[in-house]
């Protein structure tokens, strides 16, 4: 095992600044109103830096800077933008440990995950969109012998992006990489729970970006996010979060008649058909791991497989083995590379999870393992730790219907295929789902019958850049990842050209 020194301790691979201002027009500028807020680490609950408390004045300044840069950036050659994205990826790769430790300290997630997933995925994402923009083509339609319709891609201009706190750098990258590749300038607002690690990234890549192309305004949703979402000079808003704020952002966007993309969460079913247990082999082990995936990132994933549906004929054995597997999840200091589950991202998140565990018990769900907060002792006693928890219950219970956003899975049994699909689709959301079966036909049919945008089939929690991600139902609008994401950041310009020398004949 390795345990990374905490930021601020001797030998740490990352040093946070004592204070972060806004990054506007290529430089750091103090907030117009001069206020800052404290940023604690969920690992210990202690403050490690302070952050500019942005307001509408700062958003105005950032949007103006972005607007000033938009025309020139939008005209750069795709190859030039691709080169910038590739350089960003290289710089991140050279600083992988620094970014991974910063992200872990900021969010509470285990460094094992940031080293193996968050940061490598972000690096690959920049490279993917560097390639995608160079390979993108417009289209030509031959209308008649003398008339041609040319369809060309043009950037939207300045876009606003509001980033969640569960993967601060990776989620920022999911939004930044396609927007920049397509030639847009960005005003980005990090989550107020996790505002600092993005500035470690900015510190590494600022010299690669023309001033104004990327601007970061920190602050609270109501004070900085809202004026960004309402700003008359932005051409699109992208948001990851929850339903009420999603509706409010659509409402604001309607005032300016601009598009939104929204990723609003889910309550993802993870279905285990009986044949997964037909042998005690590598596939059975893989399916067991698939069950335990609810604990990835402390369950703070929009696609957390938080409803496990297990066929009744294998239920007792499969769930028994799964509970044993969950018991082996090692909870500990997030900067220890052996740690598999770290801290919840904030105190209010911690309290909310406990309130859901409480209503789960009141509704009669049975706790198979966990169900309590975890006191890990020492300096970690001030942090926000919850035991991986498995509930057994019924799909009508609130713990089966609401996104707890914690390491909590609710398990129910089903009798046959139709029963499985009925329960899986009995939810307001449709972001992710998992299907596990050795029978390709069953797995395919289930994947098509589940109303969700991403159905992991015999796998879970893989996030390759070249696979579209987004929701059905109340899980949102639009997609992220995949080259189709470029469409969300581009206008279509149609040149309808006549090569005929003759009048049309109307007048």
């Amino acid at each position, binding site marked *: 095992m390795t345990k990374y020194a905490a930021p601020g301790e001797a030998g740490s691979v990352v040093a946070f600044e004592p204070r972060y201002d806004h990054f506007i027009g290529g430089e750091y500028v103090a907030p117009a109103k001069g206020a800052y807020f404290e940023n604690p680490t969920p690992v210990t609950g202690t403050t490690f830096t302070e952050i500019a408390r942005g307001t509408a004045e700062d958003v105005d300044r950032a949007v103006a800077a972005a607007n000033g840069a938009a025309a020139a950036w939008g005209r750069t050659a795709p190859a030039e933008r691709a080169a910038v994205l590739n350089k960003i990826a290289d710089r991140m790769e050279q600083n992988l440990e620094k970014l991974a430790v910063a992200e872990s300290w900021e969010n509470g997630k285990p460094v094992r995950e940031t080293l193996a997933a968050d940061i490598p995925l972000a690096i690959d994402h920049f490279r993917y969109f560097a390639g995608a923009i160079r390979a993108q083509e417009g289209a030509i339609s031959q209308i008649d012998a003398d008339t041609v319709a040319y369809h060309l891609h043009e950037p939207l201009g300045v876009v606003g992006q509001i980033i969640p706190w569960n993967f601060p750098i990776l989620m920022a990258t999911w939004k930044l990489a396609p927007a920049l590749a397509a030639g847009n300038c960005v005003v980005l607002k990090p989550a107020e729970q996790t505002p600092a690690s993005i500035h470690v990234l900015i510190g590494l890549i600022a010299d690669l970006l023309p001033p104004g192309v990327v601007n970061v305004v920190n602050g609270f949703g109501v*004070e900085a996010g809202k004026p960004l979402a309402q700003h008359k000079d932005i051409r699109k808003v992208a948001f990851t979060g*929850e339903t009420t704020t999603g509706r409010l952002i659509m409402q604001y966007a309607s005032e300016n008649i601009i598009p939104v993309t929204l990723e609003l969460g889910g309550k993802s079913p993870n279905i285990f058909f009986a044949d997964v247990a037909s042998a005690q082999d590598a596939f059975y082990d893989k399916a067991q791991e698939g069950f335990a995936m609810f604990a990835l990132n402390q369950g703070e994933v929009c696609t957390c497989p938080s409803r496990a549906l297990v066929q009744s004929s294998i239920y007792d054995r499969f769930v028994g083995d799964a509970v044993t597997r969950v018991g082996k999840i090692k909870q500990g200091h997030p900067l220890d590379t052996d740690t598999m589950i770290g801290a919840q991202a904030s105190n209010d998140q911690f309290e909310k999870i406990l309130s859901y565990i409480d209503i789960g018990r009141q509704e009669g769900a049975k706790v198979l393992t966990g169900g309590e907060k975890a006191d890990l002792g020492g300096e970690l006693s001030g942090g926000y730790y919850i035991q991986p928890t498995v509930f057994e219950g019924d799909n009508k219970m609130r713990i089966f219907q609401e996104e707890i956003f914690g390491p909590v899975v609710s398990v129910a049994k089903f009798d046959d295929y139709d029963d499985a699909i009925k329960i899986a689709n009995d939810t307001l959301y449709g972001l992710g789902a998992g299907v596990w079966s050795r029978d390709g036909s069953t797995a395919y049919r289930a994947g098509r019958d589940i109303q969700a945008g991403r159905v992991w089939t015999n796998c879970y929690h893989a996030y390759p850049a070249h696979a579209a991600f987004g929701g059905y139902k109340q899980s949102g609008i639009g997609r992220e990842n995949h080259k189709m994401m470029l469409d969300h950041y581009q206008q279509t310009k149609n040149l309808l050209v006549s090569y005929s020398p003759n009048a049309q004949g109307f007048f």
Partner: protein
Amino acid sequence: MAVNRVALTEDAAALLRRLAADHGPLMFHQSGGCCDGSAPMCYPAGEFRTGGSDVHLGDLDVAGVPSPVPVWMSAAQFEYWKHTHLTIDVVAGRGSGFSLEAPEGVRFLIRSRLLTDEELTELDH
């Protein structure tokens, strides 16, 4: 006392008094989904446009706050919540979409209990 679906802790009432002094009349809309979801959002009254897809759970009468504070939830979400009584509480925290209290370093939170059969009968009338 009449049966209600939603109530308030004293800490939450004190916070509403402060917010009402700064922002005027207030409203709640219960959120679902990820990140800051599954939690109540507090806005200036009228800021969030409610419509036919929402259910009005009740009005909170708060001592020291001139206007009652309505509490709303989407009707689809209410279908899964209607057997529970909700109490709006407040905890230390940060971050809450565009909810008004976040800059104060606190966060509204729902605490729930099952409605009794008697309460459900009365609410159905």
